[in-house]
């Protein structure tokens, strides 16, 4: 059975009816065919002559050969095996070895709605792939305006769910990152509360704010986002706190892509100052902190979730998991409904 039709598979590879960030925009260069695995799908990414990015299944509709091994023809891809040409909509536009065959003109290559935003390529994976995607809504710090940002892209050898757990666990800042440039201060004891919002929830310390990693927001809709804020020391100069917008996407069961947009609400010369200091030294410090998270996540045992003893600090990740599991079960039920599509006739 296709794992993406099961509750467990959807959880491990990522729920459907979501936009996922796939890779930094710069990874898809003009004229190239880029092969990546994301969210349980084997994907081909390419740009047409106008620079528009396309995300399709990396599978020739003829016999299943990798289209990524084919030829980029500007507005279409030619499979290298038998020359079958498929366009950006997934329609077979030419079968050179058998002109006029029934495959020509048919829209048979799975094609996923794609967009670029904030330096990343996003694709929509729907439960019903013929239905239009939801609008890609992004958290304010990466929507533009008064915010400045840098995208930090990583790939970790850990399930994406461990990374999501980590982001929804502000308390680890006071321990794992206790010697970092941003999280050395604050209490080691905390009581948390969950505050429900229109789009998700905020998980926050009840007795401390603006000192350490004191709150995190989970936004759940057409895409899943985690936003968090960490106060900067005076040395970072004027401007708002350091803000991270995170988006995750599974590469496989045990590997995922992490997008950490490092943001600051800051303008004018203060913005230029932060951008200079960020490039010159702060990025390296932030990256060292992220490496602590990576080392922890990658070393977690495969059965970590099966043998936990959670306490009050963990209520956000419990809530998040419950939400994802319930939705995965609903989607799995829809995806295992008997297919109604007629079989494809062979020419």
């Amino acid at each position: 059975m296709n794992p993406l039709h099961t509750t467990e598979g959807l959880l491990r590879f990522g729920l459907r009816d979501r936009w996922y960030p796939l890779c930094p925009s710069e990874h898809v260069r003009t004229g190239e065919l880029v092969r990546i695995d994301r969210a349980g799908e084997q994907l081909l990414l390419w740009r047409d002559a106008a620079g528009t990015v396309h995300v399709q299944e990396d599978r020739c509709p003829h016999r299943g050969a990798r289209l990524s091994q084919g030829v980029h023809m500007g507005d279409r891809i030619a499979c290298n095996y038998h020359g079958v040409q498929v366009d950006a909509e997934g329609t077979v536009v030419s079968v050179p070895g058998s002109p006029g065959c029934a495959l020509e003109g048919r829209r048979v290559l799975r094609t996923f709605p794609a967009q670029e935003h904030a330096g990343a390529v996003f694709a929509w994976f729907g439960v019903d792939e013929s239905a239009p995607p939801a609008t890609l809504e992004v958290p304010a710090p990466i929507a533009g305006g008064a915010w400045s940002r840098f995208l930090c892209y990583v790939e970790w050898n850990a399930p994406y769910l461990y990374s999501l757990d980590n982001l929804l666990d502000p308390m680890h800042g006071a321990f794992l990152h206790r010697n970092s440039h941003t999280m050395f201060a604050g209490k080691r004891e905390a009581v948390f509360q969950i505050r429900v919002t229109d789009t998700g929830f905020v998980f926050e310390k009840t007795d401390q704010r603006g000192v350490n990693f004191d709150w995190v927001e989970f936004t759940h809709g057409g895409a899943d986002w985690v936003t968090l804020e960490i106060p900067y020391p005076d040395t970072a100069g004027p401007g708002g706190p350091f803000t991270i917008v995170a988006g995750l996407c599974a590469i496989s069961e045990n590997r995922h892509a992490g997008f950490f947009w490092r943001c600051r609400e800051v303008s004018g010369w203060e913005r230029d100052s932060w951008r200079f200091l960020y490039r010159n030294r702060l990025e390296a410090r932030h990256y060292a902190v992220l490496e602590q998270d990576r080392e922890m996540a990658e070393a977690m045992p495969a059965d970590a979730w099966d043998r936990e003893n959670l306490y009050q600090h963990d209520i956000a990740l419990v809530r998040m998991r419950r939400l994802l599991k319930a939705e995965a079960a609903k989607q799995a039920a829809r995806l295992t409904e008997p297919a109604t599509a007629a079989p494809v006739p062979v020419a």
Partner: protein
Amino acid sequence: MPSSYENAFGDELEAIYGRGVHDLPGVVAALNASGVRPAGGEDWTEPSFTAELARLSGTENHS
């Protein structure tokens, strides 16, 4: 690789900011009290300081 000038400029900025000086006239005055000067060796002014930061900040990609 950042130049030694960029690193020294960053060191001074962090030190000044670390003392809680976050206003433009204060930062320029504190920079002039330091050993770091622009390439021409002249004193910093608010326009030369902000122009230098704009040069060093890099381009933004807000697609």
